[in-house]
């Protein structure tokens, strides 16, 4: 297997480095390239056109280092491949960050009812793998309210000589994150529970970016931490380093049925991913860079989710930061999330 994969690579790398990439593409019809594409097709068990595209993708640079022309080439290649693969005209946007915009998010935990419409809207919008497994970028953690009980007032450890290590009057819940995000009630909100949605916090000091050995993940000028899926080597350092458990990994080839695929995509956002790479919430940059709201903001039935430009004093997010009681998750880690929680 590894032999099959290596041989064609070596053949192609032997030529002069700079010329190879484009020359290689142009000569795609020649015998050599056809053979290579054929070999790749055998390996990936796909048709030749797709194999050719993946092969060219394999040689491309890190997105940030591409010239505009190379970016255009790469985007066109992807559009062609996705359109063929999913049977619908797919666009791959490459709009850069807007000037003077720094995205921020605020979530009203008082209002959240735990319906998880945001979770599913996100999956629909962002082309995650749908089954086996379904990848979700947002998790809504159910927190049960704690309780103090009279009968335990005098109970604790040790039993005699006065409680010293700990009392039992408080029934522990809610304060410790127990990570219950699989709840399946008949109705939400459930009595005695509140809900705590989490997703990528788009940290100003993102630990995931620092640990990446190939700089495939980085912070864009508008504050969004993005991933070049084509450059990721799948080492999962970022997944280990994220204190918010926001990153997901494509353990196998993602399963995205044609009919479920959202054809409006962005290179750094919701374009379909491949196996062996990390992914996460990007604040729907394919939407927000065009002035739209994220899918989760749009779908929230109680208006708990607010989104906007942190640099604009008139934006809703800025108003919330000024007027409401706001906190950030795990602030002690000094990651400076741009995802704020607030209460009225």
């Amino acid at each position, binding site marked *: 297997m590894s032999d099959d994969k290596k041989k064609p690579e070596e053949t192609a790398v032997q030529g002069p480095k700079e010329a190879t990439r484009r020359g290689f593409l142009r000569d795609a019809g020649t015998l050599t390239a056809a053979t290579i594409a054929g070999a790749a097709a055998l390996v990936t068990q796909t048709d030749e056109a797709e194999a050719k595209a993946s092969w060219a993708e394999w040689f491309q640079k890190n997105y940030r280092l591409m010239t505009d022309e190379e970016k255009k080439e790469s985007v066109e290649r992807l559009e062609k491949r996705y359109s063929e693969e999913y049977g619908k005209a797919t666009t791959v946007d490459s709009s850069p960050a807007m000037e003077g915009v720094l995205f921020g998010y605020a979530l009203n935990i008082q209002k959240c009812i735990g319906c998880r419409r945001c979770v599913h809207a996100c999956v629909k919008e962002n082309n995650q793998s749908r089954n086996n497994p379904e990848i979700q970028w947002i998790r809504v953690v159910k927190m049960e309210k704690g309780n103090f009980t009279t009968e335990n007032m005098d109970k604790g450890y040790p039993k005699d000589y006065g409680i010293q290590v700990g009392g039992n009057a408080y029934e522990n819940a809610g304060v410790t994150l127990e*990570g219950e995000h699989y709840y399946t009630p008949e109705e939400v909100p459930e009595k005695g529970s509140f809900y705590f949605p989490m997703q990528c916090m788009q940290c100003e000091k993102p630990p995931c970016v620092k640990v*990446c050995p190939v700089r495939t993940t980085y912070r864009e000028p508008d504050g969004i931490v993005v991933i070049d899926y084509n450059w990721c080597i*799948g080492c999962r*350092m970022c997944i280990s*380093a994220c*204190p918010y458990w926001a990153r997901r990994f494509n353990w196998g080839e993602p399963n995205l049925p044609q009919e479920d695929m959202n054809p409006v995509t962005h290179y750094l956002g919701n374009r379909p991913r491949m*196996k062996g790479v*990390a992914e996460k919430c990007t604040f729907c940059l394919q939407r927000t860079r065009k002035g739209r709201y994220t899918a989760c903001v749009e779908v929230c039935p109680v208006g708990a989710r607010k989104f906007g430009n942190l640099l604009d004093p008139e934006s809703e997010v800025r108003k919330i930061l000024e007027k409401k009681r706001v906190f950030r998750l795990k602030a002690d*880690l000094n990651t400076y999330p741009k995802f704020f929680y607030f209460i009225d």
Partner: protein
Amino acid sequence: MRHKIQFAIDFVTYAVRGGPKFYLWMLGLGFFILLMSYGAFRQFTEGMIVTNYNDQVSWGLYEAQFVFLVGVAAAAVTVVFPSYVYHHKKLKEIVVLGEMLAIAAVFMVIIFIMFHMGRPDRLWHLLPVIGIFNWPNSMLTWDVLVLNGYLGLNAVCGFYYLYKRYSGQEVNKSFYMPLVYISIVWALSIHTVTAFLINTMPSRPMWFHSMMPIKFISTAFAAGPSMIIIAFLVIRKNTKLKIADEAIELLAQIVTWCLGIAIFLTIAEVVTELYPSTEHSFSLKYLMFGMHGLTGLVAWYWSSIVLMISAFILLLTPRFRKDHRFFLPLACAMTFAGIWIDKGMGLVVPAFIPTPIGELSEYTPSWIEIINSLGGWASGLFLFTLLVKGAVGVLLGDLKNGGEWEPIVISEESKEESYRG
């Protein structure tokens, strides 16, 4: 140049020839390597979905082997350091065997890194110039540097020494000695950096403490020499190479005290974590006692503790430590196994349980992970056997091309004597 090619040819032809026991051993290893090639094929075509890794526990058996084997590689220094710094004569004669172990261990590390990668085909993205090497920011790039450097140093030192011996020339000290001293410091660096790789992530509180590097080094210097002692005993039994009792005794002492320090550090960690018992100690609690009815690692943890403590007691007792026929190899095997658990399943896996948002989910390796890991070890032992066999040939004087070095052959009387001891 022709001389060097001749050396390579002689070395290889000598290394691959042996008696029935040798062939049986290599065949056994070959079987596991074959199994691994199937496992590797499945994993590289279907993706890591053939493992039991998941978003909750995203590192597992492979990373456990990786961390442990970096330690084994670093442990070559336990042979090199006394030889060249304390001029331990008996150890110096066979120091090259330690370097061969280092080469084989780094080779295994590389195999497990390949299995660790989600996209091994994109490994070239790491190469400077054609890719992006995020150095010095990413700790992983430091690890790449020190591991490759260490492989290079040991290959150069080891084969330079063997080649000089083979040609009957003296080593050029002004070339050789600086490399030896660098490799001593470098050995410490590889395991320190591997510790930094995981303990610089506050998202995983179980790893997030400054004791990690010293614990890594002390456990490595217990497990590594244990393996070296066992290898020495096997070599002594099967070849004429003179491996003095003093050499083995010194290594046994190193194992004893490093194991003692490791046990002390384990106690220190347990007390520090469990006394205040904050949320940050949940991983350790899960490992030691289980949590919410999930107890997958509890048996592993306590078996590791029992192995390490009983090995320590055996090694502390001179009567057992000096019994090279049974108790010393037993204690070494126990140390090796205990630390393999402690640093593998007992360190890598529980750090992911619970997840940063508090979810507890257990992990058991899939059978593909298991055959790939067995195969990784088999490949390393395969290489180690060949390297050691060739090196022993040179030391024995079976492999030579002019000049005279005194072969390190055991005389019949001293052989009898060492067996009695």
